[in-house]
């Protein structure tokens, strides 16, 4: 088998007495869509935050393209080509859509205005933001200068997804990206994920929506009590089996379709 693009072994993260990760393992292979599922509080968000540089694990190792890495900030992970849609969306409510799209990686004007006056290139940033929202069919939003807080929850989620898709070059992590979306918009996001995969990116999708997971995932990582319980292929097992594993009704050994690694 090929080498995982993003891999973790034995991640531990404690918050006081709460153990958010308890020796969590993780493997993401190039060009695949990996769904991560688990009960509320299982530690899924904690896991992907460790992978994206948002949280520094207390113990464990992360490898990116085979090399051990330590991301001290999300910026470092972004530089490596890893983009993340956080469950909280990570948007500045008072700032505009364009501001939020480019926060932390603003485009400067060419020439003197950009290099000496450090002036931002609002024209280019607005055009880019508009184009990306168009691609996602978010054109119910007409004004790219609108503050994010005046948008609906679903529109905000759409913008967060558009931002990650626009800037990710290797890995895109989505933590419940369709939780607030309508049926049509959810389908758009699923289509976008398939498209990103076709472009050769690797995708991590956290979702509680089993039909979505079974529709697009290549493999399903089942997270339970702070660690990976097992990984299965949706082709080889049924939705009730997966839910049974996730909730602890079934033990992992009872699952004949388990995929090792």
């Amino acid at each position: 088998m090929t080498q995982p693009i993003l891999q973790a072994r034995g991640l531990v993260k404690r918050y006081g007495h709460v153990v958010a990760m308890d020796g969590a393992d993780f493997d993401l292979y190039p060009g695949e869509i990996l769904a991560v599922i688990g009960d509320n509080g299982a530690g899924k968000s904690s896991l992907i935050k460790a992978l994206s540089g948002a949280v520094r694990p207390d113990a464990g190792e992360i490898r990116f393209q085979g090399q051990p890495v330590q991301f001290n900030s999300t910026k470092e992970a972004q530089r490596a080509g890893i983009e993340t849609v956080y469950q909280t969306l990570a948007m500045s409510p008072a700032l505009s859509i364009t501001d939020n799209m480019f926060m932390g990686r603003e485009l400067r004007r060419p020439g003197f205005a950009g290099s000496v006056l450090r002036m931002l290139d609002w024209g280019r940033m607005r055009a880019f933001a508009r184009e990306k929202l168009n691609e996602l069919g978010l054109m119910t939003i007409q004004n790219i200068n609108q503050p994010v807080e005046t948008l609906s929850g679903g529109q905000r989620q759409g913008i967060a997804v558009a931002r990650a898709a626009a800037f990710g070059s290797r890995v895109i992590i989505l933590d419940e990206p369709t939780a607030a979306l309508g049926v049509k918009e959810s389908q758009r996001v699923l289509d976008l994920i398939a498209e990103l995969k076709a472009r050769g990116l690797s995708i991590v999708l956290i979702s509680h929506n089993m039909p979505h997971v079974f529709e697009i995932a290549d493999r399903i990582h089942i997270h339970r009590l702070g660690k990976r319980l097992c990984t299965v292929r949706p082709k080889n097992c049924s939705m009730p089996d997966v839910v049974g594993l996730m909730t602890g009704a079934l033990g992992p050994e009872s699952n004949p379709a388990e995929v090792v690694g």
Partner: protein
Amino acid sequence: MTSTEKSVSADSFRHGGGRSMLDRVQHALHTNPSLVPLLVLVVSVLVFGILIGPRFFSPLALTLILQQVAIVGIVGAAQSLVIITAGIDLSVGAIMVLSSVIMGQFTFRYGLPPGLSILCGLSAGALFGAINGLLVSIMRLPPFIVTLGMWQILMAANFLYSRNETIRAQDIAAEAPLLHLFAAKQNIAGTDFTLGTIFMLALVLFLAFVLRHTAWGRHVYAVGDDPGAAELSGVNVRGTLISVYAVAGLICALAGWVMIGRIGSVSPNVGQLTNIESITAVVIGGISLFGGRGSIMGTLFGGLIVGVFTLGLRLLGADAQWTYLMIGVLIIVAVGVDQWIRKVTS
């Protein structure tokens, strides 16, 4: 942004038409929070103009208002930066005074060239600000507490170091005129514009530009709006905070230099109320104490409103207490308006 673009956006997020006038006003203020203070400024100038007559529009009146607003405007600009990050700086006045004392004492006690002393004063201001910033961002202490402590420390240091001595204006004029630089006057149509006033206006315009058109400026807003979100988006939250407090300290030191020009002497006994006055200008100027919103132009308008009230009531022969009373009302109204504006969400 064109006005058609604005109206399209307004309709697009409130489906079903039928937006009331009030909604429109609320939305306009949301996009442009300094409209309120601008309106209050215009109205108060008109009202005082009607009550007082042409005397209120005389060049002398304008001269007085501008002189009074120069210092508050500069320190208010520093305060605005800090408040946009959802912080507050109670030490602005102390930094200003101690920096001016350093500029004066280094020249007269140690005989340093005035230019070098001024450089030392400016560096000291930036350093005090940076210490505030480090304590706020790295130690995660509340800005109110950090700067309350810094205010006391610097005020005490100010009196101890200056030995409570004032450097006389004649001595400065004779030996170190550079310290009086900002007192230089230009008479335009009968109104005296000091270099200090012009500097204040230039500083506000420059900061408005930086906040709007540079990545650093956008990060200042993002950090005040939601530091967690800014961090996840890849903003260096700590670095931004430290730089904001350090820049605020530097601006306060510049205000100290301007103040030497304004009062002529170097005295450790001035600027006791500057922190409150700067916060007043910022709040009346429509900058949210919760961070992330407001424009620095608002602070300028806020400072001018206070100046217009002070002078207008004085020319009307009213008790000075009426000024404080009116400003108190304005502060509370401004915060009320801010709360209302922030409710614009769908």
